[in-house]
């Protein structure tokens, strides 16, 4: 699990960074929100992986063909992908290419294992695989709880920065391991920044904000120092306690490792030295914080960003300064303070990211039985009916722990009404569409999730009489109600669903009558 923030110390490195021209880089990037039945699903682990994958392929010199992105995949799949990558690395080395392997993981970890859904991968196993991998330089970055275990060895440090000593003239070789937290700490996520602290700051740093040397290249040590400082600062006052990233390395060579090269990307945002000092949040169109810029006074910043439209936010004591800018292909756009406007805190554009980043979808199919409480109504007006139902559930859309669901159902049943001593058999049909808003209470590590809330349904009820001299009848109406259910997780993707609803229906054709009906459903849901 990951847990919140404080300020630490940053030590900068002043090495001579180098990116060998014949170097080929490989990256295996994995993120998994689930960690098995005894853990609560993470909100941003898969998103962290996507962002790290993006920054490596955009700025890190990793070709798309050499970058594997594994989202919510199992441990055996990760190991297979790693084996495949090692094979390709070996081939590249046989061709005389210098190689770098970067392995990134964001997700759960517990009891010495990485948790990839229901599967596990030991820290020690991963570390051994990295140690034995054929690449010249191997970088392991683990963003998970207790991930400091992976760096716990001779030379492991819980420190704000590390320094790679230039030794001789040979090219740099060896293993570097970074962890987001110490061996006894939780790694924390933040709704505010829409990701885990460590990964979010690592990505922001790699996009340019960590480039303290100003050479428009971000080295491994610069990125680590930046992420360390921001993570410690932001988690210092969190309930889970301060989170301290750690590192260990066994590198020999003549230079630090350049992770991202901003000169290879010709578009982004340029924050001039004249811009006010402070922290700028750059938010993409999907609401995620694409990068943060900690701008000192009288210093400029280059932040590499993919072409597109962005919003920028800077927080002052009493208000926000917000604005928009567009990054065109091959162009660094200069941030113009005069084009930002004042805004209240309630207009904070980052709220969108908080909502969007938490979204998780699931689709359920099931069978429903519906009946009205009132016996005369049940016997002669709306008979008990079986329905087939489908429901799209959007988790954490409005806020974390809230469930927003859209459902459709349809079914039919036979019925009979007797009027003036005359039995009139009919075929009753029903179509419903509903929207629910409920609160979820995950139990037993998210294996069992009860929920309860409100629902508004649209009902189209109709009947056809066997005696076709009578016209078809229908009723179209809205119906408010209550919903409660239990979702029991069967696997990473599937869950069994039991649900009960009670609804109010105002019948107003012959006269105004308040009716009520109940529904019981059982189904199977699939999480996307």
């Amino acid at each position, binding site marked *: 699990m990951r847990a919140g923030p404080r300020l630490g110390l940053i030590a900068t490195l002043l090495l001579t960074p180098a990116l060998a021209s014949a170097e080929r880089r490989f990256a295996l990037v994995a993120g998994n929100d689930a960690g098995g039945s005894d853990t609560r699903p993470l909100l941003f682990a898969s998103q962290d992986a996507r962002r790290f994958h993006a920054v490596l392929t955009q700025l890190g010199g990793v070709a798309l063909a050499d970058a594997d992105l594994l989202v919510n995949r199992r441990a055996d799949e990760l190991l297979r992908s790693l084996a495949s990558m090692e094979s390709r690395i070996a081939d590249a080395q046989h061709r005389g290419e210098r190689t770098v392997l970067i392995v990134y993981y964001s997700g759960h970890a517990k009891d010495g294992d990485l948790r990839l859904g229901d599967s596990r991968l030991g820290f020690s196993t991963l570390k051994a695989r990295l140690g034995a991998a054929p690449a010249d330089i191997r970088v392991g970055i683990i963003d998970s709880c207790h991930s400091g275990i992976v760096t716990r060895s001779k030379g492991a440090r819980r420190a704000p920065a590390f320094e790679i000593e230039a030794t001789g003239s040979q090219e740099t070789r060896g293993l570097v391991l970074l962890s987001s937290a110490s061996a006894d700490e939780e790694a924390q996520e933040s709704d505010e920044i829409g990701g885990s602290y460590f990964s979010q700051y690592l990505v922001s740093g790699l996009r340019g904000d960590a480039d303290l040397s100003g050479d428009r290249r971000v080295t491994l040590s610069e990125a680590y120092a930046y992420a360390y400082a921001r993570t410690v600062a932001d988690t210092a006052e969190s309930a889970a306690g301060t989170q301290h990233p750690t590192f260990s390395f066994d590198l020999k060579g003549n230079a630090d490792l350049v992770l991202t090269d901003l000169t290879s990307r010709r578009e982004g945002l340029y924050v001039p030295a004249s811009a006010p000092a402070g922290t700028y949040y750059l938010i993409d169109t999907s609401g995620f914080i694409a990068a943060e810029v900690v701008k000192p006074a009288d210093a400029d910043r280059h932040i590499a960003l993919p072409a597109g439209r962005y919003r920028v936010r800077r927080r002052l004591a009493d208000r926000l300064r917000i604005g928009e800018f567009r990054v065109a292909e091959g162009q660094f756009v200069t941030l113009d303070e005069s084009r930002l406007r004042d805004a209240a805190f309630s207009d904070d554009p980052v709220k969108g990211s908080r909502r969007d980043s938490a979204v998780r979808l699931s689709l359920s199919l099931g069978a429903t039985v519906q009946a009205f409480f009132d016996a005369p109504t049940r016997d002669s007006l709306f008979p008990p009916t079986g329905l087939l139902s489908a429901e799209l559930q959007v988790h954490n859309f409005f806020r974390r722990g809230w469930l927003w669901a859209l459902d459709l159902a349809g079914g039919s049943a036979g019925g009979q009404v007797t009027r*003036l001593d005359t039995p009139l058999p009919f075929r009753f049909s029903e179509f419903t569409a509903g929207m629910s808003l409920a609160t979820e209470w995950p139990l037993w590590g998210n294996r069992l999730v009860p929920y309860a809330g409100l629902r508004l349904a649209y009902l189209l009820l109709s009947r056809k009489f066997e005696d076709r001299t009578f*016209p078809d009848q229908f009723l179209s109406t809205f119906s408010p109600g209550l919903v409660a259910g239990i979702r029991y997780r069967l696997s990473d993707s599937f869950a069994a669903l039991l649900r009960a609803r009670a609804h109010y229906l105002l019948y107003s054709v012959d006269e105004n009558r308040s009716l009520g009906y109940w529904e019981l459903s059982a189904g199977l849901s699939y999480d996307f």
Partner: protein
Amino acid sequence: MKHFAPLLLATFSLGACGNYSNEDLDFQLALPEDGELDAKLPQALTLDTSSEYYKLTRQVVTSFNGWAAALVGLVDDVRRYSPTSRNGAERVWGPFADDKHPGWQIRVVMVRVADPNAPAPAFQVSYSIQLRNAAQNGSAFFDFMTGNYSSSGSARQGQGEMLLDVKTAREAFFPVDDFGDLERLDLVYDTADYPITVHMVVQNVATAQNRGADYSYAENADGSGTLIFDLTVDVVPGVPGATDVTFISQWLGSGAGRTDAYLKGVAVDTPVGIDCWGTSTVADYVWRWNGQGNFGSADSCVYQ
């Protein structure tokens, strides 16, 4: 809080619409169906050799059923469509534009009549088909057909009346060519139990040669029945001074039957003819007051 409940009701009423109603079924069940008021002669065919009075009875039955079908047909749409509006005990269909008669509107109003003495499932209803000349400003609806029905507890088992007022429609310049010389048609029926009875009075305009007819029909559970009909015919066309003739036809479920004809008099009716026929509808016995064509024995008649 006391304003909340009505507000909630109003909110959910706004989105509600439809015709899903059990009470509508009561109104629709109260109306007679096509064929329900027909006179039923057991045989379907008339032969050249059939008895003269049997043939006459058959013709009258056809005419009788035609008038009944015309009346029932007018309310047929009420059964096939749901009401346009509901107001407590009242149901209204329309008003609709009368496609056949441009400028005219038609509507049907049915009202449930409360009867505190009626048993629980009993149902009493009155109804009317109304016309209005929409082309005339301020023109009001008038009754073209009225009716009422009292259920005995079951659908279409009860007493009812129907009146077709062609005279009023003609005076309002509603095109009534389809009705010929008809001025008024009254129909009273009782389907509550056997014998089912239907009494129909056809009244034509005064200038018509045939100024009308009176039919009384009774149907028994075993298929036997009686049809009494008066024909009023001017002896001299166009000159009032009609001769009234009453025919009494009776038949068994097997089809064999008898017709007696009477010339209506001031004090007593005078028998003028008798036909008795068997199941083949061919006469077994014929008697005429003037002796022409008489044959057979009255003992062969199924009714003595």
